[in-house]
């Protein structure tokens, strides 16, 4: 563990990312304490620039809602969507990839053709269509993002399984009569997890971006404040009120950047040899 942390800490950017990420998660966790009122509540005069009114240090939006409160509560939606949809996508991807890679042959071909089917459709477009069909809500957004995000995981896990299944320790497990399920879960999977974790961390960032895009287009959950929604709603007055779109935009930018940096740090820590090669 200490060795892992030393390798992670060697990447300065990753440490910075981790600090920011922890900050965002804390903001999301304590949003209801920092901003006890609903972020939808019109607490000030509309169109107030940052600092113009006490208590609204990031300004207010077109209806007088506090931008800072919106960002804090919006962090919850972003983190929630990012984590849950990634978890679901990784779950689907690992199962599909493991089955395809372990059994090979016809099953492999079938699963991979199915995966390619999803990969050929642009993911943003597919996600929007899915949300529109399922009716916009936080659940349908998570489902849509998960459905468009699992194929890369499946391909990655399949690749790992293809190389690992011929290794001696797997052969040995087979010889002593372990079942397929047990071999997959206890022998191969733990050994193929490092790249999956790195990929998953980056997927969280993509999911947050995708959720923002969906909300920006007006297909978000209408009852939950989100960063994408804030930008979408403020876009029309950007000439008069830059702060309404700038701060949520900056929140998305810094969060996604932080997750990417952390992802890179994880890569360094989990695959030290690869990382060092890459750096030279």
């Amino acid at each position: 563990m200490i060795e892992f942390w030393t390798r992670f800490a060697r990447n300065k950017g990753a440490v910075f990312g981790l600090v920011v990420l922890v900050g965002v998660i804390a903001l999301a966790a304590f949003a209801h304490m920092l901003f006890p009122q609903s972020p939808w509540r019109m607490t000030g005069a509309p169109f107030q620039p940052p600092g113009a009114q006490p208590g609204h240090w990031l300004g207010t939006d077109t209806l007088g809602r506090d931008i800072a409160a919106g960002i804090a509560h919006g962090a919850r939606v972003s983190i929630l969507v990012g984590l849950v949809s990634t978890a679901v996508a990784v779950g689907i991807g690992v199962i599909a990839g493991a089955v395809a890679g372990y059994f090979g042959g016809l099953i492999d071909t079938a699963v991979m053709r199915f995966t390619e089917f999803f990969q050929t459709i642009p993911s943003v477009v597919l996600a929007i269509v899915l949300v529109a069909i399922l009716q916009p809500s936080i659940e349908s957004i998570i489902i849509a993002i998960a459905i468009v995000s699992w194929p890369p995981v499946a391909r990655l896990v399949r690749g790992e399984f293809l190389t690992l299944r011929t290794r001696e320790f797997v052969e040995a497990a087979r010889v002593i009569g372990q079942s397929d399920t047990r071999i997959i879960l206890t022998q191969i999977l733990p050994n193929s997890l490092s790249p999956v974790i790195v990929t998953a961390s980056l997927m969280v960032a993509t999911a947050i971006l995708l959720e923002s895009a969906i909300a920006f287009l007006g297909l978000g959950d209408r009852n939950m404040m989100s960063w994408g929604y804030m930008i979408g709603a403020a876009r029309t007055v950007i000439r008069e009120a830059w702060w309404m779109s700038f701060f949520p935009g900056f929140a998305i930018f810094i969060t996604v950047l932080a997750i990417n940096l952390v992802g890179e740090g994880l890569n360094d820590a989990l695959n030290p040899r690869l990382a060092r090669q890459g750096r030279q």
Partner: protein
Amino acid sequence: MSHVTTRYFCKGVLGAAAAAALSLPAMAQDPVDGGTLNIIINPEPPILMLGINQQGPTQAVAGKIYQSLLTYSKELEPQPSIATDWEMSEDGLTYTFTLEEGVTWHDGEPFTAADVVFSYDDFLPETHPRWRNVHNRLASIEAPDDHTVVFTMEEPFPAFLMSFSVDNAPLIPKHIYEGTDYLDNEANQTPIGTGPFKFEEWNRGSYIHLVRNDDYWKDGLPHLDEIYFHVIPDAASRAAAVETGQVHMSRAEDIEFFDVPRLAGMPNLEMTTEGWEMYGPLGWLEFNTRVEPIDDVRFRKAVMHALDRDFIVENIFFGLGNPATGPINSATLFQDPDALVEYDYNLDRANELLDEMGLEPGDDGVRVSLRLLPLPYGETWDRLAEYTRQQLSEIGVDAEIEAADAGTWAERVADWDYDMTFNYLYQFGDPAIGVSRSYISDNIRRTLFTNTMGYENERVDELFNLAAGEVDPEKRQEYYSEVQQILTDELPVAWLIELGFPTIYDTRVHNAVTTAIGTNETYDDVWIEE
């Protein structure tokens, strides 16, 4: 009856007085002849034959080509157009119109009373749903001579005189259409009217070009040589076109509301929300009065108290429009501000009303959960839904916003499958045409723009009925005042805003909006400074 002969009395205002009143802004300068007017048209009309299609953009273009018997001042007084005089018999059953002489169609054929009879008795009843409603009330239309037309009603219906705006009653050339398939006539592509501008060219997707009618029946008019309507589908490009002076004018919803204050503030541009008096759009929060606890009038009053209509107009509609106070738009006839029950913005009062009902808040502060279906007409209406949900939460009413596209919204409202939604309707000048349809129990239908709320009150039905058939304007006002008092007390809907659609125009353009039909007017008196 002591009077054997039918007595007529004149309802018309003398043309000269009206014309003087209308041209007031231009009096400082003498009109200049010549020049080209450039107007945005969006979306592109499907066809310019106004008898067949009456969408907004079609009206704006074809209103320059076609004419009707009358037009209307901003106060909704009928004004002469093709008709010089009009009289209603005392029993309200017969209307006699005298027509302008020396009017010709754009192809040179003379215009006569036979064209009027053909238009209103044959053509429009077949192609125009709103005119069909008028036609159903008519017993006959006759032309005793070439310049007189007599309409006979089945029963008195004084709102009849409000039916002659050009979008509702365009005059159609008999010599072109008689005996043909109206919808399929080739002449639909080259519209022929009596108006000040003739159709010249239509470059689809780009522009519609109208040129001056040199044989126009008003001497010395029109001032302009030509009008171009530019098709600009993208909202940002439309705003840019107005801003840079590429076009002289935008109308209706060409410019998105949020861009209006900025453009209106530019020194070379003028903005007005006048010119919609004939349509009188009124927006409201619609209740499904079948749903508990909305069926309790105290709940509806609480909602009315919880919504700040001034805030809605100022901050959601960018100041375009006025707070609504009752069922009749203040631009529409017979609105009576003194008859209305008023609701100030008062959250305490709203909470009291709900307490009185026995709707106790639960541990989470929520008294009741309801569904709120936003009107899917863009950002402004989304903001209105968010505002409403927030205000309702302040009085312990949890309103969950449901997502719906235009088709779903229409289907669900028509099917009464909603708790609360938003809507706005045109009133067409007279309450008998555009107001009663929303509140009379006969009109509780599974169709949009009827009494979808399911509101019933026998006295309201009776009053609307009496008023529609009453010839005496004072009595009509009494009926309508009482109905406004009852409706504002019972709140079938929560009226929010008298919508104001902006016409933005170059300050050099004169007479852009002079009547109740605004940019649908003929524009024979419009001129541009050099």
